């Protein structure tokens, strides 16, 4: 970084000084530019913050879901006023069950239920460091619930009211819906892609592609209306009464229709990228158009098509409105497509639909489900990117 003007005119001091003023070619610090660059960098970094925020929020609330004891109203009152020292008391007949060994809470005090004799509870007062105080007759009892990871992933019941938190029924419904959706979307999507890329004339393509784009641009809530008011009655007219009003088949088929444009456009891009030389070579060897398309072009584009599959599956798993309206409200551990069942996304929407209170069992549970959902889709997306990179056929 030597000053060039110095090197050129060492003799003329005055001129040197003048030119130094005019001709300073050293890179100037431009603070404005730096500020702008920093701002731009910050906007780019926001995406990282979003991811970190998502993982942090989902993780934190999920840990709360598993770690902390949540209090459920049993609607069971205590019959007589109990004093601070009493360790046995009578409870009312109404309301939910209280189990032996459970932690219960009356007002601010936690108690450990040692044994139950009819309606009389023997408890350890002032459990968990709470203070034993007197409680008035008629006060409601809350029962503490803790969800273990094992229970979360193996229990086949999801009934928050009685403390059953098994995600399996939600997952089974998600899988059924996604499977049906893929059954519809993959063959149709691939066929459309092959037709558009290998057979269709320029004119046909210019008509068909916008139609598919329109199909892709329709909001999912419109598809949900479609599923509920047309697809379900249609299925009922074919299969009869076995089809319930809310069922996973209808939701699955409509999600299939929803992701067809995604599969077809991604697959078509992949097929389109296969160089024409391969097709010419196949024709040269006497292959028919079909043989060229399915035995030469399709295998050459398989990485792109596989990626399209995986993205479509991830989309189907994350789809919400269609299942929320058409698949039913109420977790149901079944793989029967004609029965109503609630998916992970459908459950989150239903639970958070009303004014959900913070730190309630429902509030925390949607984060736990959301975390599972987030990881499933994230893994699928990463796999799809890997597949494209790993199996891509490179052509000059």
């Amino acid at each position: 970084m030597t000053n060039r003007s110095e090197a050129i005119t060492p003799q003329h001091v005055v001129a040197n000084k003048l030119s130094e003023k005019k001709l300073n070619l050293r890179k100037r610090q431009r603070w404005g530019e730096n500020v702008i660059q920093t701002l731009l960098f910050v906007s780019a970094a926001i995406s990282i913050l979003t991811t970190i925020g998502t993982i942090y929020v989902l993780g934190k609330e999920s840990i709360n879901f598993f770690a902390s004891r949540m209090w459920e109203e049993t609607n069971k009152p205590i019959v007589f006023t109990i004093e601070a020292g009493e360790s046995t008391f009578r409870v009312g007949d109404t309301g939910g069950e209280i189990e032996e060994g459970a932690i219960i809470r009356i007002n601010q005090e936690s108690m450990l239920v040692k044994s139950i004799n009819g309606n009389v509870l023997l408890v350890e007062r002032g459990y968990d460091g709470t203070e034993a105080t007197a409680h008035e007759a008629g006060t409601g009892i809350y029962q503490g619930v803790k969800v273990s990871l094992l229970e979360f992933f193996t229990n086949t019941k999801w009934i928050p009211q009685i403390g059953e938190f098994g995600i399996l029924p939600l997952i089974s419904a998600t899988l059924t819906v996604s499977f049906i959706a893929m059954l519809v979307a993959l063959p149709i999507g691939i066929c459309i892609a092959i037709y558009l890329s290998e057979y269709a004339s320029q004119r046909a393509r210019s008509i068909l592609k916008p139609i598919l784009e329109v199909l892709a641009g329709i909001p999912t809530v419109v598809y949900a209306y479609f599923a509920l008011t047309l697809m379900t009655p249609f299925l009922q007219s074919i299969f009869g009464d076995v089809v319930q009003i809310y069922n996973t088949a209808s939701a699955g088929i409509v999600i299939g229709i929803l992701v067809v444009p995604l599969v077809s456009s991604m697959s078509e891009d992949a097929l389109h990228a296969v160089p024409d030389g391969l097709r010419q070579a196949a024709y040269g060897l006497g292959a028919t158009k079909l043989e060229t398309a399915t035995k030469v072009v399709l295998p050459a584009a398989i990485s792109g098509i596989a990626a399209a599959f995986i993205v479509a599956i991830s989309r189907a798993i994350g789809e919400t409105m269609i299942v929320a309206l058409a698949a039913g409200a109420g977790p149901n551990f079944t793989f029967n497509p004609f029965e109503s069942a609630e998916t992970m996304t459908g459950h989150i929407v239903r639970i958070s639909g009303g004014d959900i209170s913070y730190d309630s069992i429902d509030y925390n549970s949607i984060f736990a489900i959301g975390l599972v959902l987030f990881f499933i889709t994230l893994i699928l997306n990463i796999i799809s990117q890997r597949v494209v990179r790993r199996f891509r056929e490179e052509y000059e």
Partner: protein
Amino acid sequence: MSSKQHTSLAEKTKSTETFASNLSRRRRSGRVWLLIFQASTLIGIVALTALLINIIDGSFGYAAIQYSIDPETLAVDGVPLEELSKEELERIFQDNVSKGLYRRYDSEVPFAERSREDVLALVQERVVAPEIVQTWGLIDSITKKDEILMDVQEEYPDAAVEFVSWLTTDFVRNPQSSEPEKAGVRTAILGSLFVIAVTILFAFPLGVGAAIYLEEYATDNAFNRIIRTNINNLAGVPSIIYGILGLAIFVRALEALTSGTAFGIIDDPTTANGRTIISAGLTLALLILPLVIINSQEAIRAVPNSLRQASFGLGATKWQTIWSHVLPNALPGILTGTILAVSRAFGETAPLVVVGAATFITVDPSGVFSKFTTLPIQIYQWTARPQDEFRNIAAAAIIVLLIMLLTLNATAVLLRNRYSRRY
């Protein structure tokens, strides 16, 4: 030697024969598969058509309406109800409702002060009290008109059958109501526009800024690679996850900011508590940010390098080059991409349900700290109701939504065609 030639000739004829016999089979399977490919494409078109027909079918059609008192019997001296004077209407009202009810309405706003339209509306609501007992779709209404009329005669002898268009100008102008005949989508449309405005305000500058950084500044180091991969992954995250994120961050953690209490603006703090337009707009902004970035990146990448070189050659700084040469040339592409992303946000429902759109709201939003509902939310809630009439107004609302989306997308296509340049 000759025998060898002989066999090879025989083999050749044989293979020619098998080739010939195979050929027709191969051609046939080619034709069959072509049919299958075409049929699949047709299914796509049929699905779209069925969807549209289904919506139109729901928006118009016959409705059996049952009146407590037939409006025709209320006509005075042959003058129909709608054309009666205020005094006559008031008398009808007084004659047909209980004294207590009359007094209640009179104490709310004295009848002397009420306008004629107001009294007419009261008579319609309280005296005539039309109740829709059943509705039919457009297709049924056209093809099975006689059956419908007979059915109504049998089941609801008092009911009148009218052809109803659920999509009317009143439907667009009216606020939400618990009665389907009066319900409209004004609150929802305004809510949607407010939310989208917030979304654009945040997503556009941030998205374009990130795209400029990634395309013009970012070197190929680990951190920038992580940003790139991360954006691709974010684009694939289900929208409902963004809803959960919005619920935890904007609605709950930043409640003081998003409910407006930190700014001293208190817009119904008892019910809004963070479930406001700004929370919804920010959530959707996060949702479409990856799309805006990816689309803008492509637009910026399409600007030829020679333009940048020329600008640098004239002594422009990096930012001058970007601001005066790269961005103007990339702008049509950026705008098209942004509009497409915005139209995605416009139709998004799930994240807003989670963020907490109001279930029932009849007041227009007044600012970013208001409670809100949006058009897709409205459609969702109406579709979820079991009554037919709500399905009908859901269909009408879908038409409104689709028209708005079509306008947005048409703008994008126009922009693309008008300003796209080829180098």
